[in-house]
C-alpha cells in the first residue's frame, strides 16, 4: 500500500492528464527518487534464516575467548560492591563521606545516574514503537535489557542510603507497611512517589522485555540441541507456536504495553526530579526540572546504548543488523537531547538571574565559580559541547569517535547529577554550617562496583538470551512483506 503512494508529484499530474487513456490498472508506481530512498534496515538482503542464525547463534555457540575474563572481572567488581554494602550496613552510613549539610551526595547521584540510563531503553522500545520507527527493532532488545539492569543498579542506592536497610524495606520508610507505632508512610512526600515510580518502572520494563522475548525464546527452544537448554527455553517461551491467533493478541498487547510505557517513562524521571523540585532548596526548586531531567535521562541512556552496542555489533559480527544508519540515528538523538540539556542549563541560569531571588542566584554562581567549579565545567564540556560534533556525518559514522563521545556523555551526565545535588546542598542558608563534601573510598568503590553488577548482568544476558529481537528484525525486512517481490509476491497479485 505504501508503495502505491510513492508516485512522485510530477508523474501524478501526468497520470491525471492521461487518465481517460490509460485505465488505473496499468498505473505502475514509479520508483521513489534516489535521494528519498532509505538504506534498508538489514543489509545485504539477508534471508529470514540468516537472521535467526546470526542472532540466535550468538547465544548458542560457545562465547568468545574474552567472555570469561570479562565476566570474572565484572563479577569480582560486583562482589566488591556487595562487600562494601555489607560493610556499610554493619558499620553505618558514616562510612560514606556525606554529612551535614550535604546529606545527599554520591548515593543519590548514582541513583539518578542509573535510573536515567534506563530511560533510553524504554524510549527505544516504547516511544519509537508508537512512532513507527522501524529501526528500533535492531536495538530494542539490548536497550531494554540495559534498562532493567540499570534500574537494578539504581535501586540499590536509595535502599542502602537509609543505613538500616531493614527499616527501609520492612516495615517501611519505602514499602507501605505500618511501623511499630502503627504509623504509615506519608504520601505527601515526593520521595514516596519515587518509590512507586521506580518500582513500577522496573516491573513494567521487565514485563515488556519478557513479552518481547517470548517468540524468540520459542525460536531458541526449537533450535536447542541440549536437553537442559531446551527445557528452560521451552518453559519460558510458554509453549509459543507462532500461531497467528496468538500473534493477533500479542501485537495488541505489545502496542498497549508500548502505550503504557511511554507515559510511564516520562513520569518516572519527572517524579525523580520532584525529589528535588518540590523542596525549598535554592538550585533545586525550579519548574524546569521535569522536562530537563527527562531529556537528560534520554541523553545519558543513548550514550550508554552506544557504549554497549558499538562493541557488541563488532564482537558478534552483527554489522548487517545494527548498521551505520542505526548508529547515526542514535547520534542524532544524542544531538537533539543534548541540545535540550544545554538549553536547560542556560535557562536555569537565566531564571536564577531573572527570578530575582538572591539565594537562587547565589546557588548558581556558586555552582559555576564556587569550590565545585571543576565539576560544573566537566559537566558543561561533556554534555553541552560533545553532542554538537554529531552535526557532521563524517563524525557520526566514525564509530571509534562515536564510542569515545558516548563515554563522555556518560561521564557528563554523572557530573550533572553530582552538580545538582552537591553544589546546591553544600552551602545552605546558614553560612556557619557550610561545608565541602569529599567522597570516601567506600563511596568510590561502591559506585565502581555498581558497574560490575551492570556488566555482569549484561554479559549473562548476551550469553543466554537473544541480544537482538529476532522476530521483530525479520518483520521489518522486505522478505517478510507479502506484497514485496522478496516476500514472494508475484506481479499479478497487484
Amino acid at each position, binding site marked *: 500500500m505504501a508503495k502505491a503512494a510513492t508516485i512522485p508529484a510530477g508523474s501524478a499530474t501526468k497520470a491525471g492528464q492521461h487518465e481517460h487513456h490509460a485505465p488505473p490498472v496499468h498505473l505502475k508506481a514509479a520508483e521513489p527518487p534516489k535521494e528519498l530512498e532509505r538504506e534498508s534496515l538489514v543489509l545485504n538482503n539477508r*534471508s*529470514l*534464516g540468516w537472521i*535467526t542464525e546470526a542472532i540466535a547463534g550468538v547465544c548458542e555457540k560457545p562465547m568468545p575467548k574474552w567472555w570469561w575474563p570479562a565476566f570474572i572481572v565484572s563479577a569480582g567488581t560486583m562482589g566488591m560492591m556487595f562487600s562494601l554494602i555489607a560493610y556499610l550496613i554493619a558499620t553505618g552510613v558514616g562510612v560514606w563521606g556525606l554529612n551535614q549539610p550535604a546529606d545527599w551526595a554520591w548515593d543519590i547521584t548514582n541513583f539518578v545516574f542509573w535510573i536515567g540510563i534506563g530511560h533510553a531503553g524504554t524510549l527505544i522500545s516504547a516511544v519509537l514503537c508508537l512512532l513507527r520507527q522501524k529501526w528500533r527493532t535492531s536495538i530494542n532488545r539490548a536497550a531494554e535489557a540495559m534498562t532493567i539492569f540499570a534500574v537494578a543498579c539504581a535501586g540499590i542506592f536509595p535502599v542502602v542510603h537509609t543505613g538500616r536497610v531493614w527499616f527501609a524495606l520492612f516495615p517501611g520508610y519505602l514499602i*507501605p507497611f*505500618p511501623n511499630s507505632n*502503627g*504509623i*504509615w508512610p*506519608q*504520601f*505527601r*512526600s*515526593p520521595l*514516596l512517589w519515587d518509590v*512507586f*515510580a521506580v518500582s*513500577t518502572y522496573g*516491573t513494567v520494563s521487565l*514485563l515488556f522485555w519478557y*513479552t518481547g522475548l517470548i*517468540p524468540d525464546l520459542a*525460536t531458541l527452544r*526449537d*533450535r536447542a540441541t541440549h536437553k537442559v537448554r531446551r527445557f528452560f527455553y*521451552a*518453559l519460558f517461551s*510458554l*509453549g*509459543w*507456536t*507462532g*500461531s*497467528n*491467533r*496468538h*500473534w*493477533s*493478541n*500479542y*501485537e*495488541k*498487547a505489545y502496542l*498497549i*504495553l508500548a502505550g*503504557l510505557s511511554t*507515559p*510511564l517513562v516520562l*513520569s518516572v524521571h519527572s*517524579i525523580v526530579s520532584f525529589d528535588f523540585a518540590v523542596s525549598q532548596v535554592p538550585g533545586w526548586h525550579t519548574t524546569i526540572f521535569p522536562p530537563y531531567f527527562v531529556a537528560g535521562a534520554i541523553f545519558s541512556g543513548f550514550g550508554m546504548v552506544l557504549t554497549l552496542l558499538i562493541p557488541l555489533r563488532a564482537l558478534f559480527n552483527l554489522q548487517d543488523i545494527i548498521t551505520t544508519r542505526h548508529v547515526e540515528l542514535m547520534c542524532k538523538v544524542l544531538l537533539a537531547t543534548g541540545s535540550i540539556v544545554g538549553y536547560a542549563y542556560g535557562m536555569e541560569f537565566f531564571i536564577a538571574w531573572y527570578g530575582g531571588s538572591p539565594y537562587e542566584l547565589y546557588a548558581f554562581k556558586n555552582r559555576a565559580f564556587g569550590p565545585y567549579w571543576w565539576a560544573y565545567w566537566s559537566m558543561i564540556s561533556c554534555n553541552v559541547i560533545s553532542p554538537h560534533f554529531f552535526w557532521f556525518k563524517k563524525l557520526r559514522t566514525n564509530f571509534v569517535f562515536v564510542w569515545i563521545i558516548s563515554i563522555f556523555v556518560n561521564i557528563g551526565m554523572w557530573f550533572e547529577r553530582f552538580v545538582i545535588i552537591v553544589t546546591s546542598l553544600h552551602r545552605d542558608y546558614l553560612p556557619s554550617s557550610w561545608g565541602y563534601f569529599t567522597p570516601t573510598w567506600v563511596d568510590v568503590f561502591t559506585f565502581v562496583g555498581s558497574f560490575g553488577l551492570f556488566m555482569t548482568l549484561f554479559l549473562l544476558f548476551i550469553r543466554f538470551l537473544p541480544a537482538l529481537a529476532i*522476530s521483530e528484525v*525479520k*518483520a521489518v525486512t522486505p*522478505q*517478510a*512483506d*507479502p506484497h514485496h517481490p522478496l*516476500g*514472494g509476491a*508475484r506481479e499479478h497479485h497487484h
Partner: protein
Amino acid sequence: MSDPKSLGLLAQFETPADIMHAAMAVRDAGFSKWDVFTPFPIHGMDDAMALPSSKVGFFTFVGGVTGFFSGMGMIWFMNKFDYPLVVGGKPLFTPLFAFPVSYELTILLSAFGTLFGLALLNRLPKLNNPLFSSERFKRATNDKFFVYVETADPKFSAVETRALLATLGASAVEEIHDTEA
C-alpha cells in the same frame, strides 16, 4: 496411519505471500478450526484469516481502573483514615498528592492486566502441543510458514483438504497425530 488418532493436516509454505494467499483460500473455503503459524506477525494476516479485533484491551482497562482506585483508596486509608497525622500543615488527603502514586499503580496494574489477558486469550502457557511432534514445525519459529487445519473442523475431509492445501502451493503436507494416544 490410523492407529494414533489424526488431529489435523499441517501444510508448509515458503513465503509470506504464499501463506497469505493460502490463508485467504482456507478462510473462503469456510473452515473454522484452523490456524496459521508464522515466525513473525504478518501484516494483513488477521484480515486474511477473518479474525476479530483482539480483546486484550479489555483486560488492560480493568487493570488500570483497579490500579488507580486502589492507589487512591490506599493513600486515603493510610494517611486520612487509619492513622491521621498532620505533616507540614498539608491536608490529610487530597487526590492531588495522591495522584502520582495512583498514576503509577494505574500503569503497573494495566501492564499486569495486559499480560494476564494475553496469557488467558492465547491459552498460554501450554507446553504440550501435538504440533511440537512435527520436526518440520520447528521452522515455524525460524523461516517457514504453516497452515494447520484440524480434523475436528466440520468441513474437514482427509482427501479434499489435503488436495486443497496442495493446490495452494504447499511445499509439504503432513498429518499430525495425537501424541497422548
